[in-house]
């Protein structure tokens, strides 16, 4: 089976028009004529993901994120790097095809990144209010208890929190990856997201949550990390592709959380 045929079926099944202007959702290795033995979905095409996928007989990798450490996967940026050269060699040695699916995954309904993230941290769809809003209203708890529960369920070793641990919270806004609404929205207490610029951006949610704690305003931000935030939904992506590509095996191969962190105390 050829990679081009798989991509054609993805485009057909997507439910939203394909935007050819995307620079993200393109081949990063191999091409439409590459022969595919099996498909791995993942957050990042790390060296370990390439090794694990090819050992399992899967030579097509569909990541949500970039392969060459920059969003455009501009290989000129990394061309002089020794590890880049090793990565390229490994991809070529195993005839690996890489096709990123990012923009269209977020355009699809439902957006699997939100579905997977909510599942991974235990947010029940029946608490989503209003439906499809990524805002969940849960029984009142403290920021400390919520953060501990989210950490336990997600397994995120490097999870970080800003805000008064004792703050009473119930209205949660879920963000994914690097896309987070501002924490100061009047209808949310807690923002749970992947990664967020710490300051000097369009809105700095961490500094705001720090001052909210000092001012006695119940606001918190829980940062899961980019991979933890978006990789869960690559399971849904694998299951979806499996439904219309029965010819080859399809499975999630996790990149896993790259970071660890010491406890606060």
């Amino acid at each position, binding site marked *: 089976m050829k990679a081009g045929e798989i991509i054609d079926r993805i485009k057909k099944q997507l439910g939203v028009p394909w935007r050819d202007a995307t620079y993200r959702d393109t081949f990063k290795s191999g091409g439409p004529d590459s022969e595919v033995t099996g498909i791995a979905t993942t957050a990042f095409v790390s060296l370990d993901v390439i090794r694990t996928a090819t050992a399992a007989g899967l030579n097509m990798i569909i990541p949500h994120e970039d392969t060459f*450490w*920059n969003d455009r996967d501009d290989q000129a940026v990394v061309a002089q790097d*020794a590890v880049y050269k090793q990565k390229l060699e490994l991809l070529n040695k195993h005839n690996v095809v890489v096709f990123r699916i990012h923009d269209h995954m977020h*355009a699809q309904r439902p957006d699997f990144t939100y579905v997977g993230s909510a599942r991974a941290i235990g947010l029940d769809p029946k608490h989503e209010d209003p439906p499809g809003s990524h805002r969940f209203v849960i029984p009142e708890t403290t920021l400390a208890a919520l953060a501990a529960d989210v950490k336990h369920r997600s397994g995120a070793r490097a999870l970080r929190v800003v805000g008064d641990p*004792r703050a009473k919270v119930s209205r949660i806004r879920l963000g994914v990856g690097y896309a987070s609404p501002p924490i100061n929205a009047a209808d949310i207490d807690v923002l749970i997201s992947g990664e967020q610029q710490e300051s000097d951006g369009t809105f700095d949610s961490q500094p705001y949550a720090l001052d909210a704690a000092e*001012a006695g305003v119940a606001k918190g931000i829980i940062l899961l990390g980019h991979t933890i935030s978006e990789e869960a939904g690559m399971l849904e992506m694998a299951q979806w592709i499996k439904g219309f590509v029965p010819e080859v095996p399809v499975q999630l191969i996790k990149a896993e959380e790259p970071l660890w962190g010491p406890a*606060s105390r």
Partner: protein
Amino acid sequence: MLPERGGDRSPATHAHGAWYNRTPMTRLSRREFAALTAAAAAAPFAFGPDASAAAALTAKELLDRITAQIGVAWKAETVDGLKAGDPSTAVTGIVTTAMASLGVLKRAVEAGANVVVTSQPTFYAKADTRTPPAPRGPGGGPPGAAPAAPPPPPAAAPPDAVYTAKNAFIDQHKLVVIRLNEHWKLRDPDPQAVGLAQAMGWTKHQVAGNAKRYDVPALTVDALVAALRKNLGVAGGIRVVGDPKTSLRRIGLLPGSTPIQASLELMPEVDAIVAGEVREWESVEYARDQVAAGNRKALILVGRISSEDPGMRVCADWLKTVAPGVPVRHIGVGDPYWRPA
């Protein structure tokens, strides 16, 4: 279980003392401030502790002196400058900090200072205005999700309680806030790297001519994490790529927020990079692949704000030469982050 953020802080970078764990030790009394500044005033070439000299200087004049003496051309378009307060205010004391958080402002007032010089924004955005930015959808920065349609704002949005509290505190105490970031870090050698090395006790290990590079006595990743906790007062904000047992000797510093190009340039020549903030899809994944390729390396992130506070301590020393006779000191923000067990 509530996370504990109080322990393990050097008095030098004593921090913000979490609101629920503040001890008198983390505050500086007016008398202590005076004692510190008296020592500064006794330094060579400084004027004596003449109150009238201090009283004569306005915030506007201070900013003019900074602009004139910073050593790099002042940009027409800049994030630096006056962010709050009356420029005609007579300066009673200056506090430098990585970020003028409400906690830092309170401790500045307790210390008798009325001017705060901050590296990062005061009002939660690059725009740094005293009112909240207009509500908008989620930022679409790469590689983020496609923005979902934001819910329509309520007909009469209530005032933002955090902005209100901060503005009220600034007004009540007649504070002046000046941002000094993009010009400060353009100085050579990079004062943020110099400060970080000073805080870690690495100055004597500097690789000649490069404020970003230090060849230190060998230590493990675990030991380096412990030293960062102790010397920078950072804990929950620390995140690491790499094996805790990896032995390190060659250290590279990337304070602030840095793009992949900085890591690509530095990582091959060091065992570990200590950075403030990077993009996870860039430098974190690059470091992960470095380790997976068999290279015994590590990337340690301490947070943007925590990485910039030591450089603002250096800024306090510099401001003593810009405003002789005026009490100047540094107050750290402290680690904004905590992590559940």
